C-alpha cells in the first residue's frame, strides 16, 4: 500500500517543522506549504490524502482554500483537518460542509494529536 500523503499548510515554519517530524515518524509522506496560494499549487501537482490547514495566514485565509477545494470533483472529498490558535472561534458545524473533518486547537493539543487526527481522517 503506498504511503499516505498529507499536505500541511501552515505559515509558522517552526510549528510546521514540528508537525512534519511527528507525521514522518508515523511513516506518512508530508508535503508542506507556507500559505494558501502555495497550498493550491501543491494540490494542483498532486491531490493529497489529507490536508492539515492553518486558518489565518498571509494572503488568502483557509476559507478561500476550502471554497476552492469544493469547486472540483477530485478535491471536494479530500478530508481537511483545521489546526489553528483560534479553534474556539470557528463554527465547526458550518465547516463540515467544506470537508473539515476535525479541528485541532494549537493552544491545547499535544504533538501526537495530529497523527491521531490524520489516521482517523484516512
Amino acid at each position, binding site marked *: 500500500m503506498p504511503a499516505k500523503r498529507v499536505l500541511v499548510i501552515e505559515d509558522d515554519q517552526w510549528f510546521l517543522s514540528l508537525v512534519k*517530524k511527528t507525521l514522518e515518524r508515523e511513516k506518512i509522506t508530508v508535503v508542506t506549504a507556507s500559505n494558501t496560494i502555495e497550498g493550491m499549487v501543491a494540490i494542483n501537482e498532486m491531490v493529497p490524502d489529507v490536508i492539515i490547514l492553518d486558518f*489565518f495566514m498571509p494572503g488568502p485565509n483557509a476559507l478561500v482554500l476550502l471554497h476552492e477545494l469544493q469547486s472540483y470533483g477530485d478535491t471536494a472529498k479530500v478530508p481537511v483537518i483545521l489546526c489553528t*490558535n483560534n479553534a474556539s472561534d470557528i463554527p465547526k458545524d458550518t465547516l463540515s460542509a467544506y470537508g473539515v473533518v476535525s479541528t485541532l486547537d494549537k493552544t491545547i493539543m499535544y504533538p501526537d494529536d495530529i497523527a491521531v487526527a490524520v489516521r482517523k481522517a484516512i
Partner: protein
Amino acid sequence: MEGSRQQTNRLEGAVPTAPSFVAAAHELKSPLALVRQLALHLESGEVTGGELQEIAHRITLTSERAIRLTTDITKSSRLEDSLFSLEPLNPFVLCQEVVDEMKPLYAAHGRTIVLSSRARSLLALANRDLLRRILLNFADNALHYSGDGPVTITASLRDGGSCIRLGVRDYGPALPSVMRKNVGQKSVHVHSRPESSGLGIYIARQFADAMHARIGATSHRDGATFYVDIGTSSQLRLL
C-alpha cells in the same frame, strides 16, 4: 497598470481607538502556543543533541517576542502618565541597532533583515526608546506576516528635509484593499494584515503620537512598507 501602482495610505485615523483585551490575548496566543508545542517536543524525549539545542533556541526567541509584546502593551497603557523627552539622534545608528537586535530571530527563521545605507547623514528629533519599539514592532510584523524575501529598513528625508521617514519594507501579500478604501474613516477597524489583530499597529501609533510622529503604510504589488515619519532636529542645520 493598476497592480503596479504604489498606493500610499495613512494609518492615521484608520486604526482602532482602543486596544481590546481580546486583541492582546490573540497576539500573545500565537507565541505562547508555539513555546508550548516546542516544550512538549523537548519533553517527549525523542529529541537529540543538535535538535535539542535548536528547539531550546527557538523557545528563547519566541519567548522574547512574547515579552517584547507584553512590554509594549504595558508601556502603551501608561503613555498618558509619562513624559517622553525628545533628543537629537542618528536614525541610521538606531536602525542598525534594530537590525542587530532582530537578526538572530530572522536568522532562526532563515530570513534576513538589512539596513539600506545612504551616504547622507541625518539627525532626527525623537524619543529613542519609543522609536526603537516602533521599528521593532514593524520588523516583527514583517517577519511573521510577509513572504520569504529580505526585509529592509530604510531612512530617507521627506518634505523638503523637515521630516525623516524610517520604513520597514517587506515582500509578501499586499495590504488588504479594505485598508485603502477606509483611509480617513476614524471609526473603521482596520487590521495591519488580514491575519493580524492590528494591536501592534495600534501600539506603534500610540508610541508615535507620544513623540509627535506619524505612522503609515505603503502597499506595493509585492509587499508593503510600514513607516514612521519623525521630525528632523534643528541641529541638522548646524552640522
